[in-house]
């Protein structure tokens, strides 16, 4: 059984093919990093997996069920959650409310208009707990739009993992953070994705080689290498196409 | 047959008038993402100004002066109003133009009173152009066709042949790219808004004496123009043209069709009596529900083709 599997996935925007036949298998519990130059199609791949865009051809399965024809909310309910490269939060809602929203569906509230939020003890405790975990407790009642950049990134991660999805997709979670902030964020990611399947896009090679069980290199919409860190690091194709250029 | 030809011509006249309004609205929407609720209000201002100006200098100079004034009003609205609320988001911009509708409405009533204006077709054009099957076709309607056709042509040339036109065209298809091109976006916005208002003003000048120049004319025209724009597909000038002509035809033809659904059922041996709501819907003749058709059609097209007839982008 694979947690997430892609079979020859392709995506065209107009006449240009951006994703050109990606095949990928991710085992449950795996920490899988995707690297690749700017514009390689990493974010697009996430958008395809999470249902934001329809795929042009191919197959995507989550826990052995097809999800490639489904809308985002159904994919999420099936146990896949993603974050965004460009922070995507509920600007006018407080930090606490943002987290509570992220918890609602998974805790079975659905579209309830008969249960009062303030009386849902388990829900509120869980949201408070997350708040502590993200180190945002002091910002609890501030509109999320007023947080600092790093705080918003932390919230973004928190909202992604809140629902308890088994497969987590993080798109450059540490982009634009300082070193200490990155360290803190990585520790957080490690902690909150314990026992989950993690698929992460990341540019920081130190972070990638530190965290990943498997690394996939995507260049121009194609996978040019995939495997354990050592193998990928020593792969010539990767060195030529990508890593070499980076380490120059 | 005679009714058919006459209705066809009338539908064309009305459709072209609609297009003059709708094209400006579409251009503004495509560029700025703002649906200008006050567009029909500018149309009304155009009619009133034309009336006022033509009393002093005659109809033909007014044909030029009034639209220019409307363009200036449009530029003022954009510079001192819309631009200020832009950073508050689309809803704020919609609300702003929505508020303008009230002010123009009452402003016109205050300035010119509640009664219709004696804004008449100029004597020079006040004669029957030709007769078909004994019915007259007024020369003024032909003149309207001429003006709106000429405007269609010049807008088209402007879009195809000038720099601003190219930018606008780019904006129609790639709304987010224009600012990336490094053009003076506020300037382009003002130009487009003023241009749209100018077209609306021109429509007002020739529509004001075709219909009646009275304070209710914006209210009567506004919804139809929106229907046209949405029906044709927001952002598509071609769709807008087709929708305008279609709506013009529907409006004129519906008036002459004196049949109802019940009439269709009668040959089947079903006789209906209009004694409850459902039966009434079935027995009312098409001629009477003509006013209802455009809205029903708009709702239907949004349900089944959310982007409208020829729209290429989401709203």
């Amino acid at each position, binding site marked *: 059984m694979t947690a997430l599997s892609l079979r020859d996935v392709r995506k065209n925007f107009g006449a240009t093919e951006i994703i050109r036949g990606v095949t990928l298998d991710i085992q449950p519990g795996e920490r899988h990093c995707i690297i690749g130059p700017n514009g390689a199609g990493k974010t697009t791949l996430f958008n395809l997996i999470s249902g934001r865009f329809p795929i042009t051809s191919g197959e995507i399965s989550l826990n052995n069920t097809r999800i490639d024809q489904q809308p985002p909310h159904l994919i999420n*309910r099936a146990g896949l959650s993603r974050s*965004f490269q460009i922070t995507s939060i509920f600007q006018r809602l407080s930090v606490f409310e943002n987290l*509570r*929203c992220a918890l609602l569906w998974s805790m079975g509230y659905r*579209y309830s208009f008969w249960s009062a939020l303030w009386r849902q003890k388990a829900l509120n405790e869980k949201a408070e707990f997350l708040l502590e975990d993200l180190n945002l407790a002091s910002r609890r009642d501030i509109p999320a739009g007023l947080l600092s950049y790093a705080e918003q990134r932390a919230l973004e991660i928190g909202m992604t993992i809140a629902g308890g999805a088994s497969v987590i997709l993080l798109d450059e979670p540490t982009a634009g953070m300082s070193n200490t902030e990155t360290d803190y964020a990585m520790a957080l990611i490690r902690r909150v994705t314990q026992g989950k399947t993690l698929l992460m896009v990341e540019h920081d090679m130190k972070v990638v080689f530190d965290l990943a069980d498997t690394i996939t290199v995507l260049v121009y919409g194609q996978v040019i290498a995939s495997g354990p860190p050592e193998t990928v690091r020593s792969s010539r194709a990767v060195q030529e196409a990508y890593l070499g250029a980076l380490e120059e | 047959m005679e009714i058919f030809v006459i209705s066809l011509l009338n539908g064309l006249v009305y459709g072209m008038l609609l297009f003059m309004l709708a094209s400006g609205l579409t251009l503004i929407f495509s560029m700025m993402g703002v649906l200008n609720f006050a567009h029909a209000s500018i149309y009304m201002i155009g009619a009133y100004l034309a009336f006022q100006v033509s009393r002093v200098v005659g109809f033909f100079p007014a044909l030029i002066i009034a639209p220019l004034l409307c363009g200036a009003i449009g530029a003022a609205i954009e510079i001192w109003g819309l631009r200020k609320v832009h950073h508050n988001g689309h809803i704020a911009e919609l609300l702003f133009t929505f*508020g303008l509708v009230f002010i123009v409405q009452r402003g016109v009533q205050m300035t010119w009173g509640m009664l219709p204006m004696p804004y008449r077709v100029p004597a020079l054009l006040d004669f029957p152009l030709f007769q078909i099957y004994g019915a007259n076709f007024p020369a003024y309607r032909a003149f309207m066709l001429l003006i709106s056709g000429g405007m269609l042509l010049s807008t088209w040339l402007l879009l195809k042949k000038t720099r601003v036109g190219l930018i606008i065209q780019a904006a129609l298809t790639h709304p987010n790219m224009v600012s990336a091109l490094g053009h003076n976006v506020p300037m382009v916005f003002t130009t487009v808004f003023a241009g749209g208002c100018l077209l609306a003003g021109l429509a007002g000048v020739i529509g004001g004496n075709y219909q009646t120049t009275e304070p209710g004319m914006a209210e009567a025209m506004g*919804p139809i123009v*929106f229907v046209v724009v949405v029906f044709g597909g927001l952002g598509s000038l071609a769709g807008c043209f087709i929708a305008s002509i279609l709506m013009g035809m529907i409006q004129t033809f519906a008036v002459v069709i004196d049949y109802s659904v019940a009439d269709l059922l009668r040959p089947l041996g079903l006789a209906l009596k209009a004694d409850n709501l459902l039966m009434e819907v079935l027995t009312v003749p098409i001629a009477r529900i003509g006013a209802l058709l455009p*809205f029903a059609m708009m709702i239907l097209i949004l349900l089944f083709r959310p982007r409208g007839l020829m729209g290429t982008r989401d709203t």
Partner: protein
Amino acid sequence: MTRSGNGARWIWVFAVALALAVPWAFHNFQTGRDSGFVLSMLSQMGMMVILSLSYNMLLGQAGLFSLCHATFFGIGGYATVHFLNAAGAGSLPLPMEVIPLLSGLTGLGLALIFGYMATKQRATAFAMITMGIGELMATAALMFHSFFGGEGGVTTNRMIDHSLFGLTYASGMQVYYLILVWTLICAGSMYFLTQTPLGRMANATRDNYERAQFMGYDPRVVRFLQFSLSGLFAGVGGGLYAITYEIVTFDALAAPLSANALLMAYIGGTTVFGGPILGAVLITLLQSGVSLLSNSWLVYVGVLFISMVMFAPAGLSGLIIAHGPIAAAGRLRRLTVPYLRLVVPFLALVLGFVGLVELMSFLTIGAAQGKKLVLFGSAINIEATQPWLISVVCLLGGGAWLRWEARAFHRVWESLTADLKQRDRV
């Protein structure tokens, strides 16, 4: 937090007490007669509070700009006329007190249908499809006589002789209290809805439609439910309208009322729950007060609305709330002088504007109706240049002066809030 929470609670208690007491302040205890004008204005306020609150379920809470809200108000009203007629004829054995619930269900029913269509669309197209729905229903109301009664509307008699409390509803006072109770029920329920998962997700889809999808919610369903529920409350409002006026015409359903709902909610403020209540009360006061004095009250409302959109997008309640932190820090007094300095130029500006508007409208509309402009008991010659000149000078001078003072005010405000931020950080 708790302090301001308590403060808010006392405001509510005070508002309810006021609503209960006001009719008695105008009651003539010698003759035992009520003030009909006050009662009908208060009743109107109740309905408008329901209308604007339910409208804000869309605009403020879900970010939906609807142009057909009156449709659900109106349909509730029309249906209620038929319910009352049936009840009067004995074929609907329901007491008066629960009839507004039926009106609400009618509103809900129609909102389910139209909401399904409209919430397929977002943003501008949503506004357009709701405009289409509103126009469709308004046109239909004029066209179909069996249900809507055409131009004349439909009439009824509210004395159906069936009440839980043995009331006849012959007096305006009884009707007012019925309206008040239903307004409280509706406002309470709508407040409750803001504190439920659906209400919260409506806020979420307003802020970020896309993100909500990646949290398991279908934003369209959220909006559909929110739209339908708001139709339910609007329907109750329409039912109360029918009960009060015993006649429902096209006015209860047409675009101007939808626009009114928008104006009330926006001017009052869409960001706070109570904002639309403030707006409804204020606009109704203006409507019944100013429209007695002047033809042009719509101009004033329109200008107020546009100024709000431009300068105070959070509405009146937003303006008040912005003072909260400063008040909490005990620094409100430092704003007194800057405020006082705004008063004179502001009054001059308003005076000039009102003067011009009134002169204008008396020149045209007023003259047509044979009215004369009378100020402080003396007729004003609107043909003379003097009043026009004074108005223009007031308008321009006041405007320029106000601009100047507003800048100074802004500086004080900025330094105050910057101070507060500093203190927070320490």
